[in-house]
């Protein structure tokens, strides 16, 4: 036990000292002839599945011993059965990993009784951000961030899959800007975008990928206009403008403009939590108690994949311009995202009940 610990510590020191993957790959971890199962707790073809499969094939090439990585889809119930199965059955020997999405993490965070897994104990490998912007239909009379105060007099309709998810943070944010927002649940993704084009909803959010793919043309033709971004973290952890939308003010800037003071207290904490979760939009985890040498081998493989010039074009398309949190960074960000104490939970629950008569 003690020796293991020492070896692991030494490996950790060495790998951090040299900072590259080559060393970790020479460790004793070897997956030759092994079959690694990646659980995707969503159906085949969905966004999380695509994310998982992006890594599945490449991990096989980059992990020591070139194992076969197969994807197993366990769909349904917001990813919880899949995550529960992973918790119950995955061996901490590197032969099982899971691809996660933010909504499943939030189910855990908000203590859904069906979430029978301990997310805090899992070992995050990589967190992939999907930073967001908010857009409004130009029917509202707004033509950009400068019209934010005019929007306060407009009935805004916002659509998303359900309140369980990042929506709760977004709605709280809208409230902070004194916007009058009616949520319409059960509409998300493509249908939400079409509803926006029809003007049936007039307030939407988009990840930078979705923006480029779906909304950019609508912005060009003057149907919708972006009003703010939720911002991004710079290397030192400061909140800055989203590099994809450098001309757009962040939520913080608009908040200050409207309220005359900086965002603070519980609302600030919840905003930063929101930002951490958009930073973990999609992610990969190893089971709890996975030994460090195996964890490090995975981290090294993932770094290789991200840095591999052979994938440069594919990666650029897949990851966009945001920094991927890998290894220790992933751990640190995850800890911040999951730090929802009783006070914050109480604040959020009370607000949701009062504002929308919904239970957390």
């Amino acid at each position: 036990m003690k020796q293991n610990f020492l070896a692991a510590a030494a490996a950790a020191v060495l790998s951090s000292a040299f900072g590259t993957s080559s060393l970790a790959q020479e460790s004793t971890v070897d997956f030759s002839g092994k079959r690694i199962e990646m659980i995707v707790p969503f159906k085949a073809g969905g966004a999380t599945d695509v994310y998982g499969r992006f890594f599945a094939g490449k991990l096989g090439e980059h992990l020591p011993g070139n194992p076969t990585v197969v994807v197993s889809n366990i769909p349904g119930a917001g990813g919880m059965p899949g995550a529960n199965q992973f918790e119950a059955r995955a061996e901490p020997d590197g032969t099982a990993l899971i691809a996660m999405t933010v909504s499943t993490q939030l189910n855990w965070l908000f203590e859904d009784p069906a979430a029978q897994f301990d997310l805090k104990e899992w070992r995050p490998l990589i967190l992939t951000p999907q930073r967001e912007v908010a857009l409004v239909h130009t029917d509202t009379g707004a033509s950009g961030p400068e019209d934010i105060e005019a929007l306060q007099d407009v009935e805004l309709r916002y659509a998303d899959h359900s309140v369980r998810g990042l929506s709760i943070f977004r709605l709280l944010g809208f409230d902070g800007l004194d916007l009058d927002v009616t949520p319409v649940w059960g509409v998300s993704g493509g249908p939400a975008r079409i509803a926006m084009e029809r003007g049936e909803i007039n307030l939407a959010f988009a990840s930078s990928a979705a923006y480029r793919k779906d909304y950019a043309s609508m912005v060009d033709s003057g149907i919708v206009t972006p009003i703010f971004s939720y911002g991004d973290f710079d290397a030192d952890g400061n909140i800055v403008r989203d590099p994809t939308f450098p001309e757009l003010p962040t939520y913080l800037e608009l908040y200050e403009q409207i309220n005359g003071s900086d965002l603070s207290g519980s609302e600030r904490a919840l905003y930063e939590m929101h930002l951490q979760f958009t930073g973990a939009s999609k992610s990969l985890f190893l089971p709890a108690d996975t030994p460090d040498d195996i964890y490090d081998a995975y981290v090294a493989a993932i770094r290789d994949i991200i840095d591999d010039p052979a994938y440069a074009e594919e990666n650029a398309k897949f990851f966009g311009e945001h920094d991927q949190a890998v290894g220790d960074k992933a751990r640190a960000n995850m800890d911040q995202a999951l730090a929802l104490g009783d006070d914050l939970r109480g604040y959020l629950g009370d607000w949701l009940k009062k504002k929308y008569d919904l239970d957390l």
Partner: protein
Amino acid sequence: MDVWVTALDALTTLFSPGHLSYLLLGVLVGLGVGILPGLGGLAGLSLLLPFVYGMEPSQALAMMVGLLAITTTSDTFPSVLMGIPGTSGSQATVMDGFPMAKRGEAARALSAAFGASLFGGVFGAVILSIAILFARPLILMMGFGEQLMLVLFALTMVGILTGSHPLKGLAACGVGLVLGTIGFATSTGELRMALGQTYLYDGFPLLIIAIGLFAIPEIFEILGRKQTISSSSQQKLGHGTVAGLRDVLRHKWLVLRCSGIGALIGMLPGLGGVVIDWIAYGHVVQSARDKSRFGKGDVRGVLAPESANNAKEGGSLVPTLLFGVPGSATMAVLLGGLVLVGIEPGAGMVQRNLDLTFTIIWSLAIANIVGTLVCLSLVRPISKLTTIPYGYIGPVVIVIVFSAAFQATRDWLDLIALFGVGVLGVYMKRFGWSRPALLIGFFLSKGLEDSVYQATQIYGFSFLQRPIVILLILVIIASVTITFVRARNAPEPDTGQGPATRSVRVREMGFLLVFAALCIWAFFDALQRTYLAQIFPLGASIVTGAILAVIAYRFARGSGADSIHYDEVRTRDGRRTVHVYIGWLIGFLIAVYLLGLVLAAGLFVLAMIVFELRPLTWQGVVVAIMVSALLLLLSHVLNLKFPPSLLQPLVPFLP
């Protein structure tokens, strides 16, 4: 002009050996999953996805579209030959196709279906190629109010599918609506009737309801009648292929209309693929002058759903390609496949990737043609299946259906739910409750509740003033009126049952109480929810409960000659009671739990063959071993999952 050059380029590329072989591979896989009951395009695409990653985009597209195009054709085989829908989108074909097969006209029914499928499929591809240039405004006009009206329109089809009695049909539809409310309420995120099971969070999987209601009762019937499916002799069976194709020509306008219906409804948001075959079936029954033969083997009842069924693929590709919004669950997987090969579907894809768009269109057309030819060539040999002794068919199909059901969510409860729904279906069939009505109610329940909520949330009630909404309301009124008037003029159906005895009344009342209990449960569960989450289940359970009460009154007090009474057992002699087979299913599930599916399947097949066809022959042993071996192979080659068992941890090679 450029468009045509691109179109021709795409066609020439497609005919290069590399592309053509992938297309054919897709067609081959699609043929297989279509024929196996319970597996459809969705399952097939999911199986292909792992291999798609990193493929050249146009080849991957050819393969995936090839697969999709053929499943809606090949799924006709089990629908017609066994009365078991091959995919969840092909139930309507069963209504008239299976009676034809029982009459010995399997080949005619199949070739008529394939002819209609071919026309529908190519028609869908043509519509697709036109629509991607012009359909954008049409889809944008279909807002939440319009989608609500589409759902209501689909619901009116229940009127012609009421089975032995209109009231019982309506009640069955109501039960479907109530069942559909199980799970998350969209409007508030509250859970309804989930019993603390994550399995029920998203409600019952449609696949389970569809194959449970239709497959299990038919298998029991095949077993119970102790005959081959077809009543006619071997020699006659292969004949009729030409007659079937002639049927297509004779009813060309019907096939054209239904292709149009399929393509249009596939294209519009709001309904999804599953009810299109029922809408087409409803259309042919509504518009036919002589409808006495429907349900007893009218070839028009085969032509209508099959043409619509294939045309919808082209239709539902329209929003998929134009907006990146899947037109159906299958298209959602196809979209995932597109992303995997590096294509970003969404606004502008048609302009950006016009070549790939044409690859899809051509693949759809060619796969339909090739697929139909392959299916036609298989009519003769596969029709012979209907002459195989029931003792082989029954157990093998049970194994296939349960293995397919497990792919719904890969939960043990899939198997339990299939068993439960299957038993429900068996008794619904026996007491003359319409299973299609329940299925349609179930499928439309969520769409109905959600679109009412969304439309009123966005518009209040002003959506009723939108022109297309008004138009659709008129269509709905017309549809209901036609059904109503025709039903009044139709002669009282003769169930051939004679006056109901006291024991019949007791038994049918007992079964009705199952439905009543469900309504009462739904009612009390809804009382605990907030307003938005309770209004729909309250309404559905109260109305359904009221209809059930009327039926119950007529069961108890009405005349014995009332056509509301029905008990199939009385008009079918020599049947062994279904309880025996329910017992077999329970035994099978226990064996799966102990030994795992692979071993349990072989043992179950062997035991049942011996039980039904004693003595034990070498053929029986071969069939049993083949079933086990095939399952083992599937699990290893395709990473197909099977239910966990007690034995599994001890025996490493078992999946």
